[in-house]
Each structure stands twice: as structure tokens, then as C-alpha cells.
């Protein structure tokens, strides 16, 4: 296991390439459950907070989960304490984590987004911000993450407000590469993807949607092949680092995402099945890297795209 696993991700020093997906690991709750072992063996090399919004939110009515073949639909509805509650209540506790802290923020207007960035970024405990743009801009009615123009406008506004790295989390429900290019041009330091795929389930017996929030987002192994394709497309398009995620459950999957062009990867739903999944995936990844005789995971980066010129004539969406 000689491969050095540490890396630099837009200025953050990470001890290995595996972080968590926003909203899939609550470090504060986990510390209550697992005690100080959480600090001494923290599973991720950076910690991404659950997305916070300007005001506090209770989240969606239950049921909030539905299990699908090899996947999970969640309709959580972003419960959080709001900006002030986060800064006062959560941030001091998250500052105790032994890894860099990335705070995920989301709002539905430019003004509110700016308020979040101005509130969060001056805090020394915060290493970087992730902009969750899978949200409508109430002013335009468009989903920011589905529109390169919207995304560019948002970056134009937020970039001057902070010198900390800005990571933009892309939505998978529209082609992500044009949006990735737009936020790169707007000064984003990295992009992360995929967020969950829009999906739903019928209540057993047929009485309408199962989920209290009616629609939800699909994650887990079921989406891995879609995520891999989107990560490869985005990594081909941009020069900034890509954080790849979507159904990663083992080290081999992480290596696949790195091959497709990711600099780091995130583990989401797999943590639900195994609270130590982040560390396990990092270990398995290091072992795979060794077994393949690579110098480091980074040496595999992007090899997916280098196949040579014999591409078949491709009718686009038609496989």
C-alpha cells in the first residue's frame, strides 16, 4: 500500500480522495452515536455539510424515503436550521472535525445566495463553499443548475464576495457540461456531480405519490452508470477539478470515477449502509491503485477519455 493517497483539491489538502456527499452524513449526529471514534477515524478527507438555506426549514412531511432496485429515492426537503442557526449551533461543532470543512449553501434568489456566502465565507472554520444550484431562481423561474446563463449570472454575483474556493454542485437532470463550462468561466474552483435524479414512486395501493414531497431524488448504485457518463463529459469539458459521485460503494467504483476524470470522489448513500464507508472506499481505492501498479489514484485520472480515434459514428442519445 505504498501509493501516496494525499492530494490537493482547489487549495484544500486532503489525506485521500474520498469525501462525503452533502446531506448524506451528519457529523454532529454521528458523533453522538459513535462517540469520539468519529474524530479519531473520520471516514472522509473533507466534510461537506448538509445544504443550508437562509431561513430554517422543517423539511418535507414523511414518508421521505423509498427504496428502489439498487437505489433510494429521498424526498427530505432540506431540513436545516437556517444561516443563523448554522453559524451559532452547528459551525462550532463542525470545527472540531479533523478535516477541512466545506459548507453547502442554497437559496432561491441572488440576494439570498449572496447573504449565505457573505455569512459563511468569513468564518475561519470554513475551508470552502459548495453552491447547491439544483434550485429555482424565483426571479427567473428557471432552475439555476439547468441553465448556463443562470449559473453564469450567479457566479458573477458570488465570485467577488469571497476568496474561498467555490465548488458548484451540478444537477444531473439536464446536460451538465454547458453549465460546468459556464461556472468555470465565472470563476468556480471546482464542480461536483451528480446530485440525485428526479424520480418518484406510487404509494402501495395506489393512493397517489408515496413521498410526502411527491417527487424525490434517486441515488445509489442504480445511478452509477449515469453519473459516470456525466462526470466524464464534464471532466472532458472543463479544466477545474471535478468531484465525482453517484452510487460509489467500493474502491473500484471510485477508481472508475477517477479514470473518468474526477480528482476526488464523494460517497453518499453507501454511508447509510455502512457508516464507515468513506474510509473503506478510500482503503479499497488505495489497494486497487496498488494492484494496478499505478503511482497514485491521480495517475489514472482521465484515462477513460484517451481511447484513440476509432470512435464509431454515434447517433447521439441512441445507444
Amino acid at each position, binding site marked *: 500500500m505504498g501509493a501516496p493517497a494525499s492530494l490537493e483539491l482547489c487549495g484544500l489538502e486532503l489525506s485521500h480522495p474520498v469525501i462525503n456527499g452533502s*446531506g*448524506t*452524513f*451528519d457529523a*454532529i*449526529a*454521528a458523533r*453522538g*452515536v*459513535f*462517540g469520539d*471514534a*468519529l474524530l479519531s*477515524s473520520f*471516514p472522509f478527507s473533507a466534510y461537506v455539510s*448538509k445544504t443550508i438555506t437562509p431561513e430554517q426549514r*422543517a*423539511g*418535507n*412531511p*414523511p*414518508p*421521505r*424515503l423509498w*427504496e*428502489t*432496485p*439498487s*437505489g*433510494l429515492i*429521498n424526498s*427530505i426537503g432540506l*431540513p436545516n436550521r437556517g444561516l443563523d442557526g448554522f453559524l451559532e449551533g452547528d459551525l462550532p461543532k463542525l470545527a472540531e472535525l479533523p478535516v477541512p470543512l466545506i459548507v453547502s449553501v442554497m437559496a432561491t434568489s441572488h440576494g439570498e445566495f449572496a447573504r449565505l456566502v457573505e455569512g459563511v465565507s468569513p468564518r475561519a472554520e470554513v475551508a470552502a463553499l459548495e453552491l447547491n444550484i439544483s434550485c429555482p431562481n424565483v426571479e427567473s423561474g428557471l432552475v439555476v443548475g439547468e441553465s448556463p446563463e443562470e449559473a453564469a449570472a450567479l457566479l458573477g454575483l458570488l465570485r467577488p464576495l469571497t476568496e474561498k474556493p467555490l465548488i458548484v454542485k451540478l444537477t444531473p437532470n439536464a446536460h451538465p457540461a454547458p453549465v460546468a463550462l459556464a461556472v468555470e468561466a465565472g470563476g468556480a474552483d471546482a464542480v461536483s456531480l451528480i446530485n440525485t435524479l428526479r424520480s418518484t414512486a406510487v404509494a402501495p395501493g395506489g393512493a397517489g405519490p*408515496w413521498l*410526502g414531497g411527491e417527487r424525490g431524488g434517486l441515488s*445509489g*448504485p*442504480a445511478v452509477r452508470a449515469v453519473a459516470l457518463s456525466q462526470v466524464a463529459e464534464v471532466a472532458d469539458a472543463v479544466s477545474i477539478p471535478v468531484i465525482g459521485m453517484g452510487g460509489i460503494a467500493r474502491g473500484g467504483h471510485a477508481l472508475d470515477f477517477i479514470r473518468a476524470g474526477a480528482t476526488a470522489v464523494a460517497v453518499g448513500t453507501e*454511508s*447509510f*449502509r*455502512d*457508516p*464507515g464507508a468513506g*474510509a*473503506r472506499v478510500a482503503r479499497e481505492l488505495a489497494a486497487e491503485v496498488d494492484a494496478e501498479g499505478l503511482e497514485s489514484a491521480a495517475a489514472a485520472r482521465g484515462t477513460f477519455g484517451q481511447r484513440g480515434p476509432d470512435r464509431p459514428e454515434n447517433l447521439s442519445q441512441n445507444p
Partner: protein
Amino acid sequence: MTEAPLGRRLCELTRNVESGGYRIFSVLDADGPEPAPGQFCMLATERGWGGEDGRPYLARAFSVAGAEGQGGGVRLDFLVHGVGPGTDRLASLEQGERLWVTGPLGIGFSGPRELAPDAAGAILVGGGIGVAPLAIWRRALLAAGTPTRVLLGYRDRERSGGLDLFDCSEIRLASEDGHAGHRGYVTDLLAVLLEGDDASSAAVYACGPPAMLEAVRALCLEREVACELAMEAPMGCGFGACFGCAVPLAAGGYMRLCVEGPVVRADRVETALVAGSGH
């Protein structure tokens, strides 16, 4: 509460026996601590999780029904009733097979005096598969010398297991089909008990189907009897990560049942009829 080791661990199945339509199975947890009564574990089998329909995918929540330190670790007992792919697979486990165990998780029961200064005794009210956490709780109460009554209700003979977990004879039974004890609901038995002195001198602990829990909750709130409910909600993770197990609070908003429960004071929740739970 007892803290859980970080990460899931592979434990061997040491026993799986029939019990009145349910299965009681035990695993040997070499590394885990002894759970507190009312805590639960997330379980998944090592092999054969998943299946033709790609489910079960996530682990499933199970109340610890019994625990005993023994050579090589702690024996954990669980009671299971096959209602879907996960419970079916667990019910089919064979000795020597292995399970992924995460836990112990959640907040367990409080002693009667912690709930009400005058509560010297305990009344346990169990329904169906919900008798599981009451079994381990009863032993702890017994060990502490707390006077305890046990009321258990079942729907029918086919779903009437878990009695074996209560190694005592003083159980009052109710069954909807009348195959054992009082014909009717276990809450009928509770209502009678609460007519007497017990109302002020005992705390009630209930676990069972949502409708039963809601009836117990109403009875106890009405009579101002201290009461804890061991509740269920669909759980994705069991340790506060997914926010899936939301239960509406009387004060508004939601709590995560896995970290603020599964045992909760009856007056804290808006209802025990949590959408998505029960079967």
C-alpha cells in the same frame, strides 16, 4: 445510551428459531458493546441481500430483544416477522451465515422515576412484533426490582410470537381473534389497569403497530400517565445521516426518530401514526 462502534461489522448467526409465526434469531457480536434496552441495530445479511428486484438494498432496523455478554462477545437477540424482502431474508437465515450489524443505535427507555417522580412500577404494552424491545426492557426492570406488568396483544395465532423472550409467567394476553387471553385489543387491558391505582404509580412503555401506539398515547395523555413509546419510521441509515425517519412533533416540526428515539415520550410527538411506517 451505549455508543456504537464506527462502521458496520460482520457477525455470525448462532440461532434462528420459530416463535408463533415470527422468528427469533441471535447473532454473536464479537466487538460490540451491550445495548441499552430500547436501542436497535441496522441489519443486513452478508449474502443474498438484494434479490431479483434489487431489494433489499439498505439495511433494516430491528429492536434488540435480548442481549447477553458471553464467551467471545455479546449475544444479540432479535425478533422478526416477514413482511417484505428484508424481513423475509432475515427470517430465512441459517446458522453460520453472517450479518452486517450497525449499532446499538438510538435512545432507549427511561426508568419509571425518570418519567414521573411517583412512578414506582412499569406497565409494558406490546403489540405483535412490537413485543421485542419490551422483552429486554422487562429483564432490566426485573433486575432493578421494579414491579412490572406485561400486557401483550396479538392479531391472530399466526402472528403471536415472541412470548419465549419473556421468561416469566405473569403476562396478560389479548388477541383479536380470541385465540389466547382477552378477545380484543391489548389497549382494553391497559384501560382497565389505568382505571385503578396504577394510573398514578406506574409508567407505561408501549411498542407495537402505529394504531396501537396511538391508542396508548391517547389513553395515557388523557389520564396523565407517564408514557414512553418505542416507535417506528422508515429508516435509511439509523444514525442521523439521512433525515429519512422524520416524526412530527407536538410542538411543530420533525425529529429524527433514529437519534432522538426510537423511544420517545408520548406527549412529545404529534401522533404515533407516522406516514410510511407499520404494515
